[in-house]
């Protein structure tokens, strides 16, 4: 065997075969339940306990760290005071954190009741491995009744839809990912369009006719026409409207209602409600 052409070039030949296999996976795409997706779901299942532990550790420290990064310029001035406060009010902080978590959960419960539908609450335990795609990992999976394409919302507004569901975890594609798109309309003018993510994580509303009366400050809500998101969920608020060039459509920038960087708990709608009466709290 050694010395033969196949043996001498085994690395290049194996790599070549694997590159072709990867291209095949890419070109074929992955349909729900496909064999190619199963190892991927098994990996999600395996890593979930580790991610949960890390998320728990991060929960304890994240407040401090976010403060650090946000206030890096003034931190020096306040460091002594912060230390004092941290020492004296350590217990109070922990209680406050519990209170916040309780409030999030009760908000979710209220929202679920308002939606008059079946929904599963889940915790965010991780994010995409690259900054270029925008997905989150949730603590619930098919054992909790979840399946692909279910809508995910928070108390603030629409979050995204499920794209992969393992038995004990799932991945949600955020609405500000470049591959995401949902049918929505301007609540005031009723102008319809497709809300899609931009490469930098911003949101835009595409295909809004330039004759439509869309103004900054308008609320954008789901139309229910895409078959995934129920009608009437808050997506965000129009921040800028422009008409550049001779195109047929307006450029509409949207500020998402949900803060994707600070999401801790979300709600996955497992049953399509007929229509949402009130908008989620924003």
């Amino acid at each position: 065997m050694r010395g033969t052409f196949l043996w001498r070039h085994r690395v290049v030949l194996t790599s070549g075969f694997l590159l072709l296999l990867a291209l095949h996976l890419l070109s074929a795409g992955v349909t729900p339940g496909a064999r190619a997706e199963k190892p991927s779901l098994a990996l999600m299942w395996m890593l979930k306990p580790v991610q949960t532990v890390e998320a728990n550790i991060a929960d304890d420290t994240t407040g401090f760290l976010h403060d650090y990064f946000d206030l890096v310029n003034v931190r020096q001035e306040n460091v002594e005071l912060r230390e004092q406060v941290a020492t004296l009010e350590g217990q109070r902080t922990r209680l406050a954190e519990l209170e916040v978590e309780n409030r999030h959960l009760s908000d979710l419960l209220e929202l679920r009741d308002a939606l008059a539908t079946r929904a599963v609450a889940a915790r965010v335990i991780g994010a995409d491995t690259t900054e270029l795609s925008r997905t989150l990992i949730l603590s619930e999976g098919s054992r909790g009744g979840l399946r692909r394409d279910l809508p995910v919302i928070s108390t603030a507004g629409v979050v995204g839809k499920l794209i992969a569901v393992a038995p004990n975890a799932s991945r949600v594609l955020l609405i500000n990912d470049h591959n995401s798109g949902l049918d929505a309309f301007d609540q005031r003018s009723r102008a319809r369009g497709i809300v899609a993510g931009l490469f930098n994580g911003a949101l835009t509303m595409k295909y809004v006719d330039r004759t439509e009366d869309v103004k900054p400050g308008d609320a954008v809500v789901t139309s229910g026409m895409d078959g995934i998101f129920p009608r009437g969920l808050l997506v965000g608020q129009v921040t800028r409207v422009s008409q550049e060039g001779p195109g047929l459509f307006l450029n509409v920038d949207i500020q998402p209602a949900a803060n994707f960087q600070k999401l801790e708990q979300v709600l996955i709608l497992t049953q399509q409600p007929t229509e949402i009466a009130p908008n989620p709290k924003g």
Partner: protein
Amino acid sequence: MRLLALYAIATLIALALETTIPYWLPIGMLAPNLVLILAVDLGMKHHGALGAMMAFAMGYAIDSFSGTHLGLNAFMLTLIYLIAYALSRYLISTSTAIGVVVVFIGAILTGLANSIGSAGLDVGPGTAGLMPRLALQGAISALFTPLVFAIMGWGKRMVGLRTRSVRE
């Protein structure tokens, strides 16, 4: 088998870190691509069909937690494994400096591939400043390379594997 187990454990740890820490800390593109560094280590020091398969599996594992295109990172990591293999074979060296360069270039290539996979060739308003961000992530990954190589070298010694180039 020991090699497989060592890299499997290292990949799982790297993935667990990559999926959680950037979400809980506002570091964005400053997070190093740890799995890519492992693939380069593998390409430079383990020349065999098993190494290529492991690099593919590492890429597939990233695909499980990233983006919407299954196979994209599997393709890129196999390619980068092949580049690292070719460089170390033809330069007859497993030097960390070469690894640093391959990781830097590999991180940029992987980022570009992910960008194209995500946005296609559509140059929209969101793509401005992409190259500097990718270069920054490449530099951060390159900075972490000696540390990861050293940890893997230590791991290999612990399980009784050779730390230099291994031809199965």
